[in-house]
């Protein structure tokens, strides 16, 4: 496909990517298909494309992040965008500036793509109402983290050839996890069967209303799973004690080889990172044959390139501009 045709082909009809909830199964498939092309590109020697030449991308992170921020940065750079990283945890917010003030200030600099992570649910959506550029949610509180769900889906789809009909167990701190919410929404939209496994203290109220099967015993929950997704125990978001100790948590909910043996023999083990080895996952499993944890990181860059590409086509001057 030459550059001109490519730019005129719409991928999704959205201005922003704020969450999986707003995406249709067609949107999700389209983004995954586009991501596949970027996986191939990223394995070439020459990785640079000029689709975002002239565009400015700002990574606005109100919460510290290493892998997501660097993944978005690399994605933007490989598409020739001018990328700027802003870590607000250390600057304005300490001086009392609000999210909206920061957003308006950045907006005045005419960015085209704004990648935002914030510790409060809904903050990215609030911000998107006030700026003229495309906004990508890179994680808002315990709400959503759509690019993580997309990269997880891409990893699974490339390994298993499909999402439809797979049994996926999401285990651990569901309550504080935006990754869990986005993954549940995406996997169910694509026809996978989702189980969640956690102690009751780490399950959100009414989570069964999402149509998932809920288990509080890990051995039962893992039986015949195709995919085991582990979540990090988010100690920094916890007020008070949700589990008696990390030792007890690892004993009951940490993924070790014995618990993993309950899943299908070809089950994949996933983790969004960063991992707490010895708390939610045993090193032997994390580094074992079932683990696709490093592949997830690779898919992350491809998915983010696809998202930036797709949204840029809908910007003024993009092929699919309104």
């Amino acid at each position, binding site marked *: 496909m030459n550059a001109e045709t490519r730019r005129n082909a719409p991928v999704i009809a959205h201005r922003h990517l704020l969450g999986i909830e707003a995406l249709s199964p067609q949107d999700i498939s389209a983004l995954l298909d586009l991501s596949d092309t970027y996986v191939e590109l990223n394995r070439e020697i020459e990785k640079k494309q000029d689709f975002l030449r002239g565009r400015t991308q700002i990574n606005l992170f109100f919460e510290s992040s290493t892998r997501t921020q660097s993944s978005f940065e690399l994605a933007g750079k490989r598409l020739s965008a001018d990328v700027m990283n802003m870590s607000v945890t250390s600057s304005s917010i300490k001086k009392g500036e609000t999210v909206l003030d920061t957003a308006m200030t950045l907006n005045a600099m005419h960015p085209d793509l704004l990648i935002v992570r914030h510790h409060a649910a*809904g903050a990215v959506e609030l911000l998107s109402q006030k700026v003229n550029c495309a906004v990508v949610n890179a994680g808002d509180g315990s*709400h959503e983290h759509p690019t993580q769900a997309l990269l997880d889906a891409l990893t699974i789809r490339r390994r298993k050839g499909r999402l439809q009909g797979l049994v996926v167990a999401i285990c651990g701190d569901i309550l504080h996890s935006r990754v869990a919410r986005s993954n549940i929404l995406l996997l169910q939209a694509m026809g996978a069967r989702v189980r969640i496994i956690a102690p009751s203290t780490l399950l959100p*109220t009414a989570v069964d209303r*999402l149509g998932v099967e809920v288990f509080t015993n890990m051995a039962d929950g893992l039986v015949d799973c195709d995919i085991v997704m582990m979540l990090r125990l988010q100690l920094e978001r916890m007020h008070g004690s949700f589990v008696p100790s990390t030792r007890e948590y690892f004993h009951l909910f940490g993924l070790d080889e014995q618990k993993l043996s309950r899943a299908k023999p070809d089950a994949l083990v996933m983790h969004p990172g960063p991992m707490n080895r010895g708390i939610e996952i045993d090193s032997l499993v994390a580094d074992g044959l079932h683990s696709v944890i490093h592949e997830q990181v690779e898919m992350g860059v491809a998915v983010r390139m696809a998202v930036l590409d797709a949204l840029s086509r809908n910007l003024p001057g993009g092929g699919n501009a309104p």
Partner: protein
Amino acid sequence: MTPTHTQPVAGKRTILFNARLVDPSVSRDETGGVIIEDGVITEIGHHITQHAAAGTDARIDCSGHLLIPGLVDMRVFTGEPGNEHRETLATASEAAAAGGITTFCCMPDTDPVIDDIALVDFIRRRARDTAMVRVHPMAALTKGLKGAEMTELGLLKEAGAVAFTDGQQCVSDARVLRRAMSYAKDCGVLIVQHTQEPTLTEYGVMNEGEVSMRLGLPGMPSVAEVMMVERDVRLVELTGARYHAAHISCKQSLNTIRRAKAKGLPVTCSVSINHLTLNENDIGPYRTFLKVDPPLRAEDDRCAMVEGLADGSIDLVVSDHDPQDPDTKRRPFAEAAFGANGLDTLLPAALSLVHNEEVPLARMIEALTAAPAGLLDLAGGTLQPGRPADIVMVDLNTPWIVTPDKLKSRSKNTPFEDRQFEGRARMTMVAGRIVYELHA
């Protein structure tokens, strides 16, 4: 000297005629008129027509609109003293007048807290000098709203506090509340409690349930309210104190109140207009103007509130007016302040329930007038001869749309933005003096 709006004009005789008179305190609903002399209602009934107007100084043709007692709103937060940029007693009173409210109680959650007779006196003087409607302070039940030591209930009552409450704080220490109740019974004062177990709601920002789960927001479970109502009812049983649960929000709390009333305990409760007309789904994409405490609950709970109001289990309706500015509201949901503007829209929102046939007109007006006036032993809330001429002319049917900029309140955080209502106050009178007229 600022004019004192709530004082009657001496020697003036006014007639209002051609009205539908609705006064639930005496089961009145008839066409007729009212004669006012020296700020007091002297005559009312169907016999008062425009021909009975001999010797009057002012004649007002009501064109068939309703005349009802001025509304009494017993839960209003202002910013005076301490946060005058959000609301003063004067701006709150303008909003009240425009909303048909002729009397409101201001809450002690100010800076400084109204927990001392000097502050009660300050509020009364400021209200007298600057407010267009009657304002009665409620005083803090515990010093500094800290929930530890009771305030001077006896002295504060004499200074003019109409009831005692820790406002948005719940007195959660059972020993403190038990003692305060015992003492309050001796003083004959009413205790108003924000019923919520604080340890269960500390980090919560909305009702706990499916919606909070989907939005990824920490929840406030309804059981936090229910258990506090249940506990407090036990303490009422023990002490015999007069107790009012401020703005309950869920079905099970209502059932507890019903059981307490059936036992003959001196327990009453109110509901805010927000919990009668909105539910948690209205929060939609993180609309902070709908972030209130107690939180908006499920539709089931809203229906239970409406039913409880209609059958009288819930005694009265409050606006729970809580002005907030953009600095506190234009933030991510979890970080935004609680509170919704309500004085301007209390009556129109209440009428929407009447139009939907959820609550009969007479019951709704009673819950906004006679019920709170009776509970607090205030002179208003009725159109009987000999009572102050605090009267509202209400247009029941004309549709209009809520535009935040047009609200009289200094803050614009209305949960009813762009809502279409039918009916509103056309004219508001306090002590026979017109304090508001609608210029459509």
